[in-house]
């Protein structure tokens, strides 16, 4: 199997926090344009694994490969530069700022007035408006504050933002936990669109039903160890729930 058949390869990743083994030799792969569901009960190590991938902290042991090349990130910025974008449950948008400013936070568009670099607010608003239209979020203007949006709309915008900035890998960390049933449906549509445009996705959740419609493969972690990995055609949601609840792989049950 060549190195280039997967966008992401994490090999034998281990991480300790003090005396706690958050991850113990976990390996996962994500193919191009694939949606990988990362499941497990609380404390399984899902967030830790993706934080290593998105550059928040390094692994103690193991290697990470992105697009065939070995990578070791020393900051989230480096991961972002390669196209790894993360969408969190709550941590993606600043409620008290408007959409355009949020959209370009940390990556603001600028223009020069003489020697001074200033915000190109007009272009920021235009670009933001384009994306809002594409993803179908209806607001009066990009000058609206994020706080007027619902949870589902915010997640849609976060995903849209990640796609706008050319995400090759989209990491979704519990994106549906705070959403209503209707909103969940809408966000799933956005995720499907992202997948269709060729982006790979790692979808973290502890609720299988949220991810089952879009996932291609499922990986279950239990206390830092990978206990199951199965393709969609080989397992039902109930099977997977059983794995998570009992902490045992499918063959063993």
């Amino acid at each position: 199997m060549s190195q280039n058949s997967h966008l992401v390869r994490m090999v034998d990743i281990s991480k300790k926090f003090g005396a706690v083994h958050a991850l113990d030799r976990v390996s996962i792969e994500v193919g191009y344009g694939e949606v990988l569901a990362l499941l497990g009960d609380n404390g399984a190590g899902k967030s830790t694994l993706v934080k290593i991938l998105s550059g928040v902290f390094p692994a103690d042991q193991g290697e990470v490969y992105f697009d065939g090349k070995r990578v070791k990130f020393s900051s989230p910025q480096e991961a972002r530069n390669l196209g790894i974008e993360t969408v969190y449950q709550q941590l993606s948008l600043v409620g008290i700022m408007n959409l355009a400013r949020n959209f370009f936070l940390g990556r603001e568009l600028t223009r020069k007035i003489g020697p001074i670099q200033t915000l190109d607010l007009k272009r920021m608003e235009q670009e933001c408006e384009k994306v809002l239209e594409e993803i179908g979020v209806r607001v009066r203007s990009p000058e609206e504050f994020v706080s007027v949006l619902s949870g589902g709309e915010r997640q849609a915008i976060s995903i849209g933002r990640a796609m706008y900035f050319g995400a090759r890998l989209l990491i979704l960390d519990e994106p549906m936990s705070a959403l209503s049933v209707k909103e969940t449906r809408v966000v799933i549509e956005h995720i499907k669109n992202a997948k269709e445009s060729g982006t790979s996705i790692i979808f973290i959740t502890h609720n299988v039903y949220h991810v089952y419609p879009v996932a291609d493969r499922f990986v279950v972690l239990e206390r830092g160890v990978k206990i199951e990995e199965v393709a969609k055609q080989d397992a039902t949601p109930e099977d997977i729930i059983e794995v998570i609840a009992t902490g045992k792989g499918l063959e063993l049950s």
Partner: protein
Amino acid sequence: MNTVGTEKMVMQSSLMRFFSRIQKYPAFGVFIAFLVIFVIFSVIAPKFLTLANLTGVFTIVSELGIITIGVTLLMISGEFNLAVSGIYVFSAFLFATLANNIYSPLALLITLVVASFWGYVGGIITLRMHIPSFITTLGLLMFLRGIMLAITKGSSIDYRGDAVVPKMLAKFIGGSFRPSHFWFIALVLVFAFILTRTRYGNWVFATGGAKEVARTMGVNVDRVKLINFTISGVLAGFSGCIVLSRFGVANPSFGFGLELEAIAGAVIGGTLLTGGYGTIIGAALGTFLVGMLRIGLILAGAPAYWYQAFVGAILIIAAIINLKLRRIEI
């Protein structure tokens, strides 16, 4: 069809549209409040609308306002600097001591560097030790005022240096105007621009609005706060040098309570105490309001001790109005 009726309706709706448009500007509320109070004082206080009085008010407002700019910028990024009045009086003394011996512009420069140091210290302790800035800077304030008292033993200091800096900062130029008025306006414009039209400004809003979100999006949150702490120190020091230049004398009680007046000006001007929202223009207008209140009351012949009650009431009313205005959608 009742044509007068329709005309009235058309006028009303375009008025409503104008109203709803300017209402979106955060400084709108405080601007209205300022106008209202200004008009009231002009009417009931015979000497209020004189050039001498207005420039007098402008002078106090400039000195307080320069401090408020720094305090506001820091508040928007989510922190407080209560030590500003301590840095202010410390700088007044330092500047006088230095300028009594060396070329005053050099003395001013050194003083500003030291003032920025005090701002920085407040910030670095807050961020490294994870203590709320309210507490650190309160301690720093007591420390600064304390060592002032200990070193000076309560006595005042006279300015005996050259006239270069005092002329540059505070002495009358043409009629009743002072350079400090222009310094204040210039600084308001500069910092308003920085806050609203630069990348850094965006980071300031994000840092105060949702620190962790800003961090995940790659903003160096600690550096933004540290820079703002330092700026608040420099501006407080600058104001201290201005007041020394104006009076030619300073004593350790100078500036007592200014830190709270600065915060009051910022809050009346629409800045949220919790951070993430506010304007420099609004804070400047809030400072105008606070600054002209006391003088206006005296000129209007109000009973001796009403000032404190008035400012307190207005602070609360202004805070409520600002919050409500932002929620109205027409």
